[in-house]
């Protein structure tokens, strides 16, 4: 039996590390880009001789970093600008689908040049699901560190939040945010959407000399995650997460449990940041393909599959005790009936 076990491709369990590398790069870019912009402004003003020592240090470091890649920093460094809310990469403009939706609601108009910038993210989400949340979101980077911090506090004996709410709450937040945007004529969802907040607040802090009001909100969400519910904002409140979940409902790339390899250890459920139920094949629309459950699985029972719906509940894992007991309960009478002889 063990010879016929299907073992998933060995690299899948290392994707979680790749994901952390990607998250770190995105976050590092959000910090680096404002510094590069400040450098560009010094450069454009030909101001090196007028700079203070600290400004001069920034100039030198950024010059050293960018010189290998640029001829004219004031122009060439404009190739990559912005954040995950909306950005431009060598002329390709990309925006968050929530930005497109919120802006359409606030202005009561459909401005196609802008809406089209959300097309690629929407297409990627339709295939890979809520992948932005796990692989790119700069808030996820901080929230997962926050989860680790909570785990340390918990080991130290401090009580951390473990409440559970209804996950459908975030769809209500999305709806309410869009209604409020439409009524107020201002893109309200942008003010309560952590990746948008982080992108702009880092820029404010580095280039414009101080954090804005969004930082207060974001620290509030960190405390909420720490003291009330683990990863609570993403699970229960994030309007962008709600939108990505809806778009990715029939995603093609899914994680699936190989029931023959599973031993019901439930490490996947424990590690799942979004409180899903991989152990009982309950991935649903909110799985962000973060692959933490693949990485943690001790028996290679998690892999990718290409189909627009989850595998229906497959029952207890075949390496687990429950499955063995069930099998014995089924086959025992049969064995007795046949007669051992």
């Amino acid at each position, binding site marked *: 039996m063990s010879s016929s076990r299907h073992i998933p491709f060995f690299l899948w369990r290392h994707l979680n590390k790749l994901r952390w590398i990607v998250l770190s790069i995105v976050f590092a870019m959000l910090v680096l880009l404002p510094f590069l912009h*400040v450098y560009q402004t010094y450069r454009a003003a030909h101001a090196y001789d007028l700079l203070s020592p600290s400004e001069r240090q920034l100039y030198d470091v950024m010059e050293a970093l960018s010189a290998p890649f640029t001829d004219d920093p004031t122009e060439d460094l404009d190739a990559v*600008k912005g954040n995950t809310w909306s950005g431009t990469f060598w002329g390709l403009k990309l925006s968050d689908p929530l930005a497109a939706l919120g802006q359409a609601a*606030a202005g009561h108009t459909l401005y196609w040049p802008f809406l089209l910038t959300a097309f690629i993210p929407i297409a990627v989400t339709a295939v890979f699901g809520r992948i932005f949340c796990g692989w790119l979101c700069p808030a996820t980077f901080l929230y997962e560190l926050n989860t680790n911090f909570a785990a340390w506090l918990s080991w130290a004996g401090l009580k951390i939040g473990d409440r559970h709410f209804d996950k459908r709450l975030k769809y209500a937040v999305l709806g309410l945010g869009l209604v409020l945007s439409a009524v107020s004529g*201002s*893109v309200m969802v942008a003010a309560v959407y952590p990746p948008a907040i982080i992108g702009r607040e880092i820029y404010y802090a580095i280039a*414009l000399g101080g954090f*804005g009001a969004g930082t207060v909100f974001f620290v509030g969400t960190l405390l909420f995650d720490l003291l009330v519910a683990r990863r609570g904002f993403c699970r229960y409140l994030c309007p962008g997460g709600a939108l990505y979940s809806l778009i990715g409902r029939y995603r093609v790339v899914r994680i699936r449990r190989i029931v023959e390899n599973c031993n019901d250890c439930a490490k996947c459920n424990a590690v799942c940041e979004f409180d899903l139920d991989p152990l009982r094949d309950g991935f649903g629309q909110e799985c962000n393909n973060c692959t933490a459950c693949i990485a943690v699985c001790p028996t290679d029972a998690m892999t990718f599959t290409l189909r627009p719906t989850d595998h229906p509940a497959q029952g207890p894992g075949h390496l687990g005790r429950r499955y063995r007991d069930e099998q014995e309960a089924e086959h025992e009478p049969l064995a007795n009936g046949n007669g051992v002889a």
Partner: protein
Amino acid sequence: MKRRGFMRKIVAGAVLLAAAALPYGLSPLLAPGRVAPRRNYLRPPGALKNDAAFVAACIGCGLCGEVCPPRCILFHARDGAVKVNTPYVDPEDKGCILCNKCMEVCPTEALIMTPRDKIDMGIAQIDRDACYPWVDKGICGACVSICPLGAKAITFKLWNQYRPVILDGCVGCGLCVEVCPHPSVPIWVIDRTSESRAEQTV
């Protein structure tokens, strides 16, 4: 019972928060003679003229600020209510150099690509009771020499007489405001439709 305890905690938290915030709320009221610094809130070039439409169109991504070479585009980061996170230019801090980069990069219709002489951030206005040449306190001409639009926007009233006069070609970039050496800055940018303009034009 558990719910009551929870509610009590919430109320206690709110009271604590209010008590902690009280000094911050009171200090501006108690501080004598504290005047809020004068700020100009011009929209970046190419912005929708209807400010409500601009606020609805802007998603607060900060791209216009991130490409601005003089970093003149600032943001309502801690103020502005529904205008929060929208960009503005304060010419007393830094004027706009009309480089078009913000209009190119803006993903939405908030900033639309506009030819340089069609930009309308406002129009400059000079206080003739303070400007050095106008009150015969010397010669200056800083505003005239910095103007990126040249003789279409600002000129001297008479040849060799350093009294600046604003013309209709002014787009309100605010560079003149930035360079004005007078401590009270007797030049500023106002809305083109503003009533107060009539008394200052030639």
